[in-house]
């Protein structure tokens, strides 16, 4: 009998994932044993877990190992994305503290689900095998379906959860079927082995069908038009901190897996697939921006704006160059800060039960709560891409990568779209500073300490990344993928 060969396992390379899982389990145990007062600390424990995991991930920068028999890879690309995920998870835990207490969802499982979803995202960023990618996608998605429906007594939240579940599972079906076809055509699930085999397979219908179906699956996950139908309702119906989380971390994870699959498994198809991604990018940013123009509800506007931002990031994918992939990575880092910051201030303005989220409800905010209005102004300036905020630096670097590769029209369309987006972002500023209150009774604006901390952190990050981006862009540059 031949002995079974056990592949070498580098446990130190999965430190962040282990810390997250352990923290999530501790949270579940605290939920069982702690009284109501003890549960007030749950959010801070989740924050601590994410910070620790983020520090461990940062320590792995520069490391490049493939472990678990080639299923899992830790390189600068995955490390950069893991830091984005930890920032997203940590800030979400912070802005959830007050919200969860107000809405009666301050349970261990709420924070545990955030951390479990983050583990799934880490797996997606590090996966070098179709099996690991699929498992990562599902670990993340199933936790998110639950999070979307966390506020059980709100009908819109239930609806959002169900819609997300049905369409998420539907897109997983496409992703899986595409993976099965690619496996059939190449005889392997290893991304690099697929890349080698694919060179001999140009024109093979089964391989092309598989690649297209995988693209559809990923396009669903990043909410690219025309696969975006679920996004507005899900983002509007979910609890606000969960929406902030879904639009930053999981979106970054889907882009990470998307980028790695196409850089390592399908490089032979680069000549054909840029047309598909190019069209997806143009459709996504145009649709997202145009529909965001006519929204009356700020939360729904942010949902459409999130679609538009996915379109900008797709520019980096269409370019298919090292600069494009690191531009997308840097933009996702910036987006994590500015979008969670915007949602933190939306939570402040919306009050208990998220009842006041229309533009009207923001009128006179500049007088009622000057600091909140100022912070929100900085966030929407950054989302619109106005210097000296981080949004400008991110867009500049991303669109430059398109120009370098000769995608002039794509860059022009992207810039026109940014100009369009300024209208609906500044509309919010106009309401806050130039409209008087309409006399309707609105809840007093009070900023809880954790929300204030989150707002200060995101404002500082957005300004710092906007004024001094060089060091972080260099880090993003080291996290490129070889196309």
């Amino acid at each position, binding site marked *: 009998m031949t002995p079974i060969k056990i592949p070498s396992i580098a446990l130190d390379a999965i430190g962040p994932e282990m810390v997250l899982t352990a923290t999530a389990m501790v949270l579940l145990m605290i939920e069982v044993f702690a009284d109501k007062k003890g549960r007030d600390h749950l959010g801070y424990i989740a924050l601590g877990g994410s910070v620790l995991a983020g520090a461990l991930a940062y320590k792995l920068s520069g490391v490049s190992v493939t472990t678990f028999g080639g299923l899992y890879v830790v390189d600068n690309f995955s490390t950069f994305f893991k830091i984005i995920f930890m920032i997203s998870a940590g800030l979400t835990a912070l802005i959830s503290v007050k919200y969860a207490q107000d809405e009666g969802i301050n349970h261990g499982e709420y924070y545990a689900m955030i951390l479990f979803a983050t583990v799934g995202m880490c797996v997606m960023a590090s996966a070098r095998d179709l099996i690991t990618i699929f498992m990562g996608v599902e670990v993340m998605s199933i936790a998110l379906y639950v999070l979307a*429906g966390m506020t059980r007594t709100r009908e819109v939240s239930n609806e959002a959860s169900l819609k997300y579940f049905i369409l998420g599972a539907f897109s997983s079906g496409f992703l*899986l079927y595409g993976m099965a076809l690619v496996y059939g055509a190449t005889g392997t699930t290893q991304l690099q082995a697929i890349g080698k085999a694919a060179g001999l397979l140009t024109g093979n219908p089964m391989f092309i069908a598989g690649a297209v179906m995988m693209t559809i699956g990923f396009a669903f996950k990043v909410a690219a038009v025309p696969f975006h139908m679920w996004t507005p309702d899900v983002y509007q119906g979910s609890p606000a901190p969960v929406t902030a989380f879904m639009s930053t971390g999981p979106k970054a994870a889907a882009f990470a897996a998307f980028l790695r699959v196409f850089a390592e498994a399908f490089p032979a198809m680069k000549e054909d697939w840029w047309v598909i991604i190019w069209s997806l990018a143009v459709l996504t940013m145009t649709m997202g921006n145009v529909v965001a123009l006519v929204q009356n509800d700020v939360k729904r506007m942010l949902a459409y704006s999130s679609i538009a931002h996915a379109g900008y990031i797709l520019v980096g994918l269409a370019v298919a160059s090292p600069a494009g992939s690191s531009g997308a990575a840097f933009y996702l880092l910036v987006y994590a800060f500015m979008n969670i910051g915007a949602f933190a201030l939306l939570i402040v303005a919306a009050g208990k039960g998220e009842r006041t989220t229309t533009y009207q409800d923001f009128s006179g905010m500049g007088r009622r709560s000057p600091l909140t209005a100022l912070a929100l102004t900085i966030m929407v300036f950054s989302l619109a891409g106005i210097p000296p905020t981080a949004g400008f630096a991110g867009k500049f670097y991303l669109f430059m990568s398109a120009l370098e590769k000769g995608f002039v029209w794509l860059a022009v369309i992207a810039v026109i779209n940014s100009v369009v987006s300024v209208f609906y972002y500044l509309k919010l500023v106009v309401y806050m500073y130039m409209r008087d209150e309409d006399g309707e009774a609105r809840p007093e604006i009070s900023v809880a300490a954790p929300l204030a901390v989150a707002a200060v952190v995101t404002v500082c990050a957005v300004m710092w990344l906007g004024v001094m981006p060089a060091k972080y862009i260099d880090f993003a540059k080291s996290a490129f993928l070889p196309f």
Partner: protein
Amino acid sequence: MITVNHYIALSAVLFVIGVVGVLTRRNIIIVMMSIEIMLNAANLLLVTFARQSGDMTGHVFVFMVMAVAAAEAARGACDHPRVVQEPRDGGY
């Protein structure tokens, strides 16, 4: 004689049945069944190719998919009664 192509055709038919089911049916249970059919169409394909090439990876993948499908079904099952039921606190 049943060849690999027969299995591929069967799996494609099953997948299309699943997609059409999700898109056209309004009953949430039937939609979930259709999603299961989609996943199992992919499973059939994976097993076919694994048998064809004598490679174990496909079989392992199928086990993973089964575990995921079970988790998804559990999540779907807990959702269904909640949506049908009136919110207890009256909701907003």
